[in-house]
């Protein structure tokens, strides 16, 4: 018995007795250093094994939880041992039950969750801590409405001592162990954390039904028998916690806590919430995925449209023989967006067209380069033929011979090989041999437009080199019958001018003019074409065509400043008396003076003499 006002260890002042526990009286005290109220509770009758007790209390002192009173220390006095614990203000659940309080389900769930949390904390501690004496009297409801679990009985794991056994709340295995001890037997059933689960369930059984369960009268009537008004889920949780066999209960406080949390998920409103959550998430995903698909489709459509537009434009340039073919072709081939759209056949077609452009322009190196790339995408007899032609024209005879070998092995029946032999003969200056090879090869290629065209072109070039213009013109006309191209029209036009000049055939100038006129109207004029157009018109004295020729020459001056163009323009301007002659003459002289000696050598002496004479006439000074 401790007297009021007694000070123990100069720290703890006894205020009054407040109750009794399993071992005796419980005192309210005051911690003189911490300046707070404490509880002194006797836990041992003697000071024997005090070191073991010290270890136990140290364990309890290490527990810190908002739903547990803090254990500060233990103290020996008068042969007894007391623990020093936080004083918790409030009434215990036993008080409320005895007073007839009926709690709402919300309150019970809140306390049940808090008790599960604190039990989970204790059971997870190392070493594991079991309360072993959960009952309404050991659950305080604090002023804030939360629980505080007090009065640890035998709390440490592996201890089978049962002190202060609560018959109504102890688990079957606890009660069995007690019976064994009472009868001097050794208990065989281990007690673990599930015993606390049982006690918790029994406590809530009592709160909900106001009936104390009893282990000696197991099983107690189900909660549902009592018409408590509590939900089926809560009743089931309590029933499960109170299962006789530990294996049938919740296996941990955490599991029980989860079951309590899951209660709200049984409600129809919660199910509605889950359904709405699922539907809105699904709708969001569908919208985003649809959006991505639309964007992807739109981008692809744009790219596809752009490719079609570019390809159409390229095809138009090819049909006109435009000088932009090379640039446009490369632009399409190098565009990474078109990788999936331009297949190998298309790429080969574009490269072949670019090669043709360079070939017609006399740039055989670039022609061969493009033809070679073309073969990288698609191998065909035609492509091989044109590649070898370009090699030959570029004087790369050895490479050409290697490729001819490839053609012979890949296409043994091909009529292309004789054509290439003829081209080689032409390039090496053996024009008559070229003609005879072509004449022998023509029957084999009849019906094949491309090869027949090529055969006649080689024949025409060979006759032209042999100065046999009539036969050259005949061959070029035959080629033109197979396929009209700007190139063959140019060849025809040039040959007719040559024929007219050599044989004094005035009508040939008209024929030449017709060739260049066709190029002008249907295809694309280069600088030489424009000059030939105008010159052939003047030589043919096609006065009605002078204005047309001037228009084309003026267009050419907008693309390129070529001295020859201005010279011809001066002459035509004088012939048509359009008052622009002096300006054209001055420009001609200015551009002529800027030419190198070698470049001046390419200017027609006839044009130069005529221009100089006009210069003197219009500008009043000599053109040196």
């Amino acid at each position, binding site marked *: 018995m401790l007297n009021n006002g007694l000070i123990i260890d100069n720290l703890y002042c006894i205020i009054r007795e407040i109750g009794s526990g399993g071992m005796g009286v419980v005192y309210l005290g005051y911690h003189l250093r911490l300046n707070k109220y404490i509880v002194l509770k006797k836990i041992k009758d003697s000071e024997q094994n005090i070191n073991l007790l010290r270890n136990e209390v140290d364990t309890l002192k290490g527990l810190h939880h908002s739903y547990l009173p803090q254990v500060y220390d233990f103290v020996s006095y008068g042969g007894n041992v007391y623990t020093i614990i936080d004083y918790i203000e409030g009434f215990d659940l036993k008080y409320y039950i005895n007073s007839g309080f009926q709690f*709402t*389900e*919300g*309150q019970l*769930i*809140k306390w049940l969750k808090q008790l599960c949390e604190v039990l989970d904390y204790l059971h997870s501690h190392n070493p594991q801590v079991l309360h072993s004496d959960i009952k309404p009297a050991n659950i305080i409801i604090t002023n804030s409405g939360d629980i505080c679990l007090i009065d640890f009985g035998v709390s440490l794991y592996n201890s089978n001592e049962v002190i202060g056994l609560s018959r109504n709340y102890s688990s079957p295995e606890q009660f069995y162990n007690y019976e064994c001890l009472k009868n001097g037997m050794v208990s065989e059933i281990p007690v673990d954390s599930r015993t606390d689960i049982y006690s918790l369930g029994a406590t809530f059984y009592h709160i909900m039904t106001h009936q104390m369960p009893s282990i000696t009268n197991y099983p107690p009537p189900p909660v549902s028998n009592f018409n408590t*008004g*509590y*939900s*089926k889920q809560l009743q089931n949780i309590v029933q499960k916690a109170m299962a006789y066999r530990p294996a049938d209960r919740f296996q941990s406080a955490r599991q029980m806590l989860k079951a309590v949390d899951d*209660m*709200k998920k049984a*409600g129809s*409103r*919660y199910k509605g*919430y889950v359904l*709405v*959550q699922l539907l*809105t*998430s699904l*709708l*969001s*995903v*569908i*919208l*985003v995925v*649809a*959006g*991505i*698909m*639309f*964007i*992807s*489709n*739109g*981008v692809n*459509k*744009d790219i596809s449209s752009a490719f079609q537009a570019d390809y159409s434009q390229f095809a138009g340039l090819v049909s006109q023989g435009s000088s932009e073919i090379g640039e446009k072709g490369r632009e399409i081939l190098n565009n990474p967006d078109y990788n999936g759209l331009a297949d190998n056949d298309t790429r080969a077609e574009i490269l072949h067209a670019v090669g043709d452009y360079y070939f017609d322009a006399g740039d055989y190196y670039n022609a061969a380069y493009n033809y070679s790339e073309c073969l990288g995408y698609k191998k065909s007899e035609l492509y091989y033929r044109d590649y070898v032609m370009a090699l030959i024209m570029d004087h790369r005879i050895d490479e050409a011979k290697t490729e001819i070998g490839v053609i012979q092995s890949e296409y043994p029946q091909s009529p292309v090989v004789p054509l290439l032999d003829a081209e080689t003969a032409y390039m090496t200056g053996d024009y008559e041999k070229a003609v005879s090879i072509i004449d022998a090869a023509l029957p084999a290629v009849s019906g094949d437009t491309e090869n027949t065209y090529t055969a006649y072109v080689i024949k025409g070039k060979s006759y032209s080199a042999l100065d046999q213009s009539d036969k050259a013109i005949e061959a070029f006309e035959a080629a033109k019958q197979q396929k009209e191209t700007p190139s063959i029209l140019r060849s025809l036009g040039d040959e007719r001018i040559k024929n007219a000049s050599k044989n004094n055939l005035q009508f040939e100038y008209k024929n030449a003019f017709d060739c260049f006129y066709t190029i002008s109207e249907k295809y694309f004029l280069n600088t030489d074409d424009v000059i030939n157009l105008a010159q052939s018109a003047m030589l043919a004295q096609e006065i009605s065509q002078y204005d047309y020729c001037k228009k084309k020459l003026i267009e050419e001056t907008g693309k390129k400043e070529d001295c020859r163009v201005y010279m011809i323009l001066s002459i035509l301007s004088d012939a048509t008396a359009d008052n622009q002659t002096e300006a054209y003459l001055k420009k001609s002289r200015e551009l002529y003076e800027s030419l190198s000696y070698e470049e001046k050598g390419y200017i027609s002496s006839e044009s130069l003499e005529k221009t100089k004479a006009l210069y003197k006439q219009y500008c009043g000074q000599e053109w040196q």
Partner: protein
Amino acid sequence: MNSNVIIGIVLIISGISVFAVSQILLRRWMKKYNNEWMEGAEKK
């Protein structure tokens, strides 16, 4: 930018907006539901 791209952008923005707004509203509802449930609103 063709119409499909514009429609796609609108759909993506809509999808994100629907998700964001629904999450805000559902969280508010859940909080209210929790409070009501703890107060015994589900008591039979």
